[in-house]
């Protein structure tokens, strides 16, 4: 079955989510709930599909793409990616073919004096490819090994790890240390974004690149193969072998037999690999010339060479290409969309609007079928009062922060309040808070909401505390950081200044944790 999501959709979804991140939450709630009620719910009812998050998100995306890109000639980011990838695939194949055939034609150049050197052929076209495949296999094995275990790696790998860490530290001190803090933070934030994308989408974005390299290799191998066949068919080529090191013909014969093992049983013995006599008969000693060598020995090599290219060059690449297509499809089929921006969007669509005036606006103006009224009871069962959150409030602002205000705000955001913890009193008290968090059950959909003052720069202490919390609550528990403006600036909740916002968002993005989201508290208010 074709996966519900494809690359175009994912790029477009991320584009829209990114765009929405800068819009005030109030208007988003209204818009997304509207889209759900007017377009998604009727469509789901008509087709009888179950309201799964993936399907709802997909429908939302279709609607947004239609309204944003449908009427214009502008390609959506997703369409742009798809187009570009298609072109690149073709380009890789053509470039591979071109260079492969050029290499093949140049290599099989025989003017009647010096036969084509078999050992050089094996070295350049076969062994090098086998080496690349082995490296690929090895890196995959290491990755599997690292994924499974966290401690006690083999000594060699530990040393490698230590060296890498040292190199990173050195780089941080000597290269990053010289950068302005702003550039340093931006760089860290960009790396964090990549890390975050990996956590949401896994290896999804690796496969398109891998596919391109496979296509390049397929093209190159096909090119060499075609050039070889072309030369063999259209000109007479003599193959021979030579070496300064005096190794014997039987030794080479053994090596050739091993190389030919994969196909030897499917072909007659002389075709699968040259016989010992043929090998002995095709040894070249330059000072003696080739006149005395028998022609049947000199041409005995070609089926072996073609089979080598096919089995060690073209077929593995085709296998890898098909495997990466499969992996890509598997990744697409397993997408969960649990990261906060997507989860927030789902919540906005599925949470009934609290204002009474808003509902009529959402009614369609057309005479089409009336959308089924929202089954508020059913939603209440699914989300009793919204996602529960445990609120962490710094000791400094705990006394001045009014609980009533907090409850109002949580209700507005579709959260339900499960408890409040006072933190940042001192280091020891914060340890106790971590212990208290450890006691909680984080299996459900409960999240954590942290209130922070935007005008206090995010310290390493806070960022590492966040990471400690993350380790306790599990990788996918949402953590919401709500920023407060400077208290004296205006009565009530002051807005977050742009500079402070930038500093915070860079630091939080640099954590590379897609399940931590940062919001200004002020904008959530009407």
């Amino acid at each position, binding site marked *: 079955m074709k996966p519900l999501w494809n690359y175009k959709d994912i790029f477009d979804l991320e584009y829209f989510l990114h765009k929405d991140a800068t819009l005030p939450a109030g208007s988003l709630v209204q818009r997304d709930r509207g889209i759900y009620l007017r377009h998604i719910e009727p469509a789901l009812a008509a087709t009888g599909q179950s309201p799964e998050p993936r399907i709802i998100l997909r429908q939302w995306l279709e609607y947004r793409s239609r309204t944003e890109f449908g009427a214009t000639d502008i390609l959506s980011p997703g369409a742009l990616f798809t187009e570009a990838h298609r072109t690149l695939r073709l380009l890789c194949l053509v470039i591979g073919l071109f260079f492969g055939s050029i290499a093949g034609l140049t290599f099989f150049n025989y003017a009647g004096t010096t036969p084509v050197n078999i050992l050089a052929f094996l070295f350049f076209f076969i062994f090098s490819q086998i080496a690349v495949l082995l490296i690929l296999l090895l890196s995959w094995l290491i990755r599997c090994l690292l994924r499974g275990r966290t401690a006690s790696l083999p000594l060699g790998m530990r040393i490698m790890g230590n060296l890498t860490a040292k190199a990173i530290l050195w780089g941080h001190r000597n290269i990053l*240390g010289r950068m*302005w*803090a*702003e550039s*340093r*933070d931006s760089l860290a934030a960009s790396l964090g974004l990549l890390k975050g994308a990996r956590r949401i989408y896994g290896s999804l974005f690796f496969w398109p690149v891998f596919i391109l390299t496979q296509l390049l290799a397929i093209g190159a191998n096909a090119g060499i193969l075609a050039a070889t066949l072309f030369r063999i068919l259209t000109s007479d080529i003599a193959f021979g072998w030579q070496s300064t090191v005096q190794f014997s013909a039987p030794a080479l014969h053994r090596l050739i037999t091993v190389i030919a093992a994969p196909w030897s049983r499917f072909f007659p013995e002389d075709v699968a690999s040259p016989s010992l006599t043929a090998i002995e008969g095709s040894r070249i000693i330059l000072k003696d010339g080739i006149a005395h060598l028998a022609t049947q020995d000199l041409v005995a090599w070609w089926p072996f060479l073609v089979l080598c290219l096919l089995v060690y060059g073209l077929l593995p690449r085709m296998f890898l290409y098909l495997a990466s297509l499969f992996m890509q499809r598997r990744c697409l089929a397993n997408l969960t969309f649990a990261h906060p921006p997507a989860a927030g969007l789902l919540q906005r669509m599925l949470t009934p609007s609290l204002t009474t005036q808003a509902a009529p606006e959402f009614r369609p103006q057309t005479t089409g079928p009336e959308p089924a009224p929202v089954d508020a009871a059913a939603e209440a069962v699914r989300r009793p009062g919204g996602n529960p959150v445990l609120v962490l409030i*710094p*000791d*400094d602002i705990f006394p001045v922060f009014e609980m009533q205000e907090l409850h109002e705000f949580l209700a507005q955001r579709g959260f339900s309040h499960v408890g409040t913890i006072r933190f*940042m*009193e*001192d*280091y*020891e008290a*914060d340890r106790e808070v971590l212990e208290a968090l450890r006691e909680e059950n984080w299996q459900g959909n409960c999240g954590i909401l942290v209130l922070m*003052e935007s*005008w*206090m*720069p*995010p*310290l*390493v*202490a806070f960022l*590492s505390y966040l990471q400690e919390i993350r380790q306790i609550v599990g990788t996918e528990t949402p953590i919401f950081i709500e920023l407060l403006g*400077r*208290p*004296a600036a205006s009565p009530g909740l002051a807005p977050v200044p742009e*500079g402070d916002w930038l*500093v915070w968002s860079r630091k939080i993005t640099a954590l590379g944790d897609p399940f931590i989201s940062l919001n200004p508290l002020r904008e959530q208010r009407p």
Partner: protein
Amino acid sequence: MTPEIAIMGHPNEGKSSVLSTLAEDDSVRVSPTPGETTQCRTFPVVIDGREVLRFTDTPGFQNPGRVLSILKTLSGEGGEIIRKFREQARIIAELADDRELLLPVERGAGIIYVVDGSRPVRNVDREEMEILRLTGRPRMAIINCKDQEEQHLQSWKEEFRKSFNANRVFNAHRATYAERILLLEALQSIDQDWQPVIGQVVTAFQRDWAARNQVTAGLIIAMLRDCLRFRLTVAANEESQDRRREEELVRSFNKSLAGIESKAHQKIRAQFKHHIFNYQLPPRSILREDLFNERTWQILGLSRRQLAILGGLSGAAVGAGLDVAHAGLSMGLYAALGGAIGALGAVLGGESVSTSASFMGMKLGGQQLQIGPVNSIDLLFVLLNRALLFYFHTINWAHGRRDYETAPAAGDRAPDQLGFTRHWPAARIRICNAYFKALQQDNDTSLFRIEQELQEMLETVLMEISQRE
């Protein structure tokens, strides 16, 4: 061992700004992004080739709570527990910044703790203060209000009383020379051992400042001399009747004077160690106006009272020139100068110009067309006022300030609209007039004597401007 003072505090509170201003070094990295400083950087105070004191800039505290928690578990004297802490923190990557910032304290440095007084006191601040108290080193707190708000000042001061020997408000963005000296003097009081060294530094700073003022006064006098004696002569052939050519001549005369002025200003700027700041002054500043702009002259010329003083003193020497100058101002100076030459050409009908013809300092004679020297004393006062204004802006642009592009006009306290000489007493005006007369008469003996007087007077004026808070 050279005494060392470490500037410490929370990230982004203006430590580097304070240091940059104190050390008059605008190469210190200052930015609105927290965490700009990642390594300690030392700024030595060298007097006669000998390092007598050093200031050290440090990164901000990143884990005050954890540092304090560890320090409490350690025993020993202040310096000893810091050494133990740094040893213990060596393997904890998160504490890298905190470890680095305590390095000068381990070496025995005194502490200037910088806070942003425009925000409220928080737990992390109390933890930092407690850490500094545990170090046992002499320490002083500086309240550097980044915003104009001062409502939290009192609560900061109360906190400081618990763990600091002294505290001062010092705005790194607006600190004048006088405030810098006051801060240094205050440092003397927090540790008796420091008194002789810091006393020496203060004296050296004061002498250095006086020397800079002396050079500046000399530069201003040289500029006045060059400008007021400047003349431009070209051969007046047939084409000289071409009005456009005459206007060009006036333009080039004005440009030359502006060039002399600008060079002198740059030399003054170099005196005060400004490398980046280059007068992106608020648009309304008179310094950004053209020297020959009508407005410049109106604002910086002489007051009615001063004109009366000059009129009584020198009569004709000033009179005629001033009249023309003021007529020129009403029409715009370019028009006046250009028009004067053009009109003259028309009256004389292309005949050779009389040797005695002179308008507005432009002597037109024979086959030579000569402009200058300017015979209006107004130019002297305009140039003088502009030089003093330039000096005022230069010394009051704190080195820790980096908002070159966006400097708010409201923060500009320069008396642009008045001119420094507006309220000068008659004695000073007399010295200026005597100097102007000496230049006109080209009398070297009296010029030398009067220049000495002017130099002394300008040094006093510069010091007065420096002392303004």
